[in-house]
C-alpha cells in the first residue's frame, strides 16, 4: 500500500506538466484533469485557466471534484462561456493551449479513438462518440490520459481516428508539427513523443517495471533515454489534492 492512489499520482503528473498562464480544456468525466489543473494553480501555475467541458465554466473551484462535466456544482466559476463559444474557440485554434483527452484506443502516434473498435459499420465495441476530439490539433498540445493501459487500448494504429495525434510517418500527407499530443499518462507510466511523433516511454510509476509497461503496450515505443521512476506525490501535492477531493473520487 502506498500513501497515494495511482489516480492521485496521475493527477500530479499532469499538474506538473502544466505551465503557468496556459488555458486547458477538458471534456466528460472531468475529475482527474480538473484535479490536475486545480493542483497546478495551487502550486506553480496560479494563472492557469481551465474550461470544464460542456458547462463552459472557466476555472471553477467547486467544493468537491464533480463526477459530471455539466453539473451545476461547477457554478460559480470565474466566468462561464456559453458552450457554443467554447466550440467556436476550439475551432479558432489559437485560444486554448492544452486539450486533455482520452480514448478507448490510443495508438503509437497519439491518435485517439472514442468511436468504434473493429469495423465502423459493425463494431465489436461501439464507443460513446468523439465529442470535441477532432479539435485536438487546434491546441498547442494535448495531454492524453486513460485508466486502462492494456495491449487492447494501446495499439499500433487505432481502428478509427476520432482524435488526431501525430502523423504516422513521413509518407502521410499531413506534415509533422510541434502541435499534437505531448504527454500520455496511464496507471503504469507516462510517455512523451519523439521527433517523428511516435510515443516514447518517459517514466514508469513507482512499483512498476519497464517490462510490465512494455507487456501492457500493444506497440513498440520509440527508443529514447532510459525511463526514470515517476516522482511520487509530495506531501504538499497530496494535501492539496485531498482538500479538493473530499469525496475521494481519486482514491477509488
Amino acid at each position, binding site marked *: 500500500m502506498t500513501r497515494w492512489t495511482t489516480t492521485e499520482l496521475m493527477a500530479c503528473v499532469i499538474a506538473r506538466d502544466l505551465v503557468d498562464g496556459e488555458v486547458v480544456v477538458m471534456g466528460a468525466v472531468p475529475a482527474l484533469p480538473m484535479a490536475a489543473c486545480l493542483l497546478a494553480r495551487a502550486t506553480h501555475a496560479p494563472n492557469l485557466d481551465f474550461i470544464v467541458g460542456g458547462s463552459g465554466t472557466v476555472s471553477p473551484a467547486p467544493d468537491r471534484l464533480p463526477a459530471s462535466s455539466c453539473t451545476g456544482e461547477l457554478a460559480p466559476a470565474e466566468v462561464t462561456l456559453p458552450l457554443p463559444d467554447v*466550440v467556436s474557440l476550439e475551432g479558432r485554434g489559437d485560444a486554448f493551449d492544452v486539450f486533455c483527452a482520452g480514448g478507448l484506443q490510443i495508438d503509437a502516434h497519439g491518435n485517439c479513438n472514442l468511436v468504434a473498435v473493429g469495423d465502423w459499420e459493425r463494431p465489436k465495441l461501439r464507443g460513446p462518440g468523439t465529442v470535441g476530439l477532432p479539435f485536438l490539433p487546434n491546441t498547442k498540445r494535448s495531454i492524453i490520459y486513460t485508466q486502462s493501459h492494456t495491449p487492447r487500448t494501446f495499439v499500433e494504429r487505432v481502428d478509427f481516428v476520432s482524435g488526431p495525434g501525430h502523423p504516422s510517418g513521413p509518407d502521410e500527407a499531413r506534415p509533422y508539427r510541434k502541435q499534437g499530443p505531448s504527454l500520455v499518462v496511464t496507471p503504469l507510466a507516462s510517455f512523451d513523443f519523439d521527433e517523428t511523433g511516435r510515443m516514447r516511454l518517459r517514466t514508469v510509476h513507482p512499483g512498476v517495471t519497464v517490462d510490465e509497461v512494455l507487456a501492457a503496450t500493444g506497440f513498440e515505443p520509440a527508443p529514447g533515454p532510459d525511463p526514470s521512476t515517476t516522482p511520487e506525490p509530495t506531501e504538499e501535492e497530496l494535501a492539496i489534492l485531498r482538500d479538493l477531493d473530499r469525496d475521494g473520487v481519486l482514491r477509488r
Partner: protein
Amino acid sequence: MRPRFVDADEAVTSVEPDSTLGVGGMQLTAAPMALVRALVRRRTRIGRLVTSPSASLQADLPIAAGLVDELVSPYVGFEHLGLAPAFRRAVEGGSLRVLEIDEGSLTHALHAGASGIPFVPCPPGIDLTDIPRVDPTLFRRVVDPFDGTERWAVPAIRPDTVFVAAAVADEHGNVAFDRFPFTDRTMALAARRLLVEVEEVVPAGSLADRPPGTTLPAFLVDAIVVAPGGCLPTEYPGRYGRDDETLRAYLAAAKTGDPDAVAPFLEEARR
C-alpha cells in the same frame, strides 16, 4: 404567436412519426425527460434523432424502446456511470444507423439551421479524422471560393421538432434557462416546432431583467409543458441534482436488452 400550455402527453401528439427530433440537455444535465418519456410511451417512431453534443438518457431510452432509426450525436454515454447500453447494443447489432458527427460540426450545423445558412465549412481538425469519411450524408467536400482549397462541410440541421428543458416560463410563454443554456438555445432556434418543458410558471414580466442569451421569446415556442422535476434522473442545475441511483438502475435494466425491462423508466420521475 404565443405558445400553448399543455401536458406532456398532449404536447408530443404534434411529433410526426418518422420525422427528425432534436433533444436538448448536455451529458447528465437538463435532459428534457418529461417530453422524451411521453413520446416513448406513445411509441412514436423517430426517423432521425439529433442530440446535443453529449447526450445520455434522452437518447438511450428511445433507442432502448426500439424507436430510433438514425442517430446524429457526437456522444451518447453516462460519464462516470459508464457507456450507454441500448446505444451500444443497437449499433453493434446493426439496428441503429449512426450518422457520425463531432461536437463542432453539429453545433455549427445547428447554428446554420437557425440562421438560414444552407451548409457550413468545417473548422480544421475534422479533416485529420475518419469521421467525415464514413458517410456522405453529413460531410461533403466544398471548394472555398476565396482561396480555392477543398474543405469538409456539413449541411444545416433543422429538426422538425425540438425538445428542451428550461427553468421557468412566464405567463406569456417566454422561457428562461437558469445557468447553463449549453447548446439548447441554438437547437431551439433551429427548430421548426419547439416544445419546452419547464420547472415552473412565473408571472408575466418576471423575465424582464434576464440577460440576453438566457431566454427564448414566446413567439418561438409552440408549446410549454410544466413538469417540475421533469429532467430527473438527470440534473437541473440550481433546482435538483442528478439521481445516480435511478440512472444505475436504468443502466442495469437496459443492459439486459429486454425492452420491457426499461418500462419502469417511462413513468414520470418523482422528486
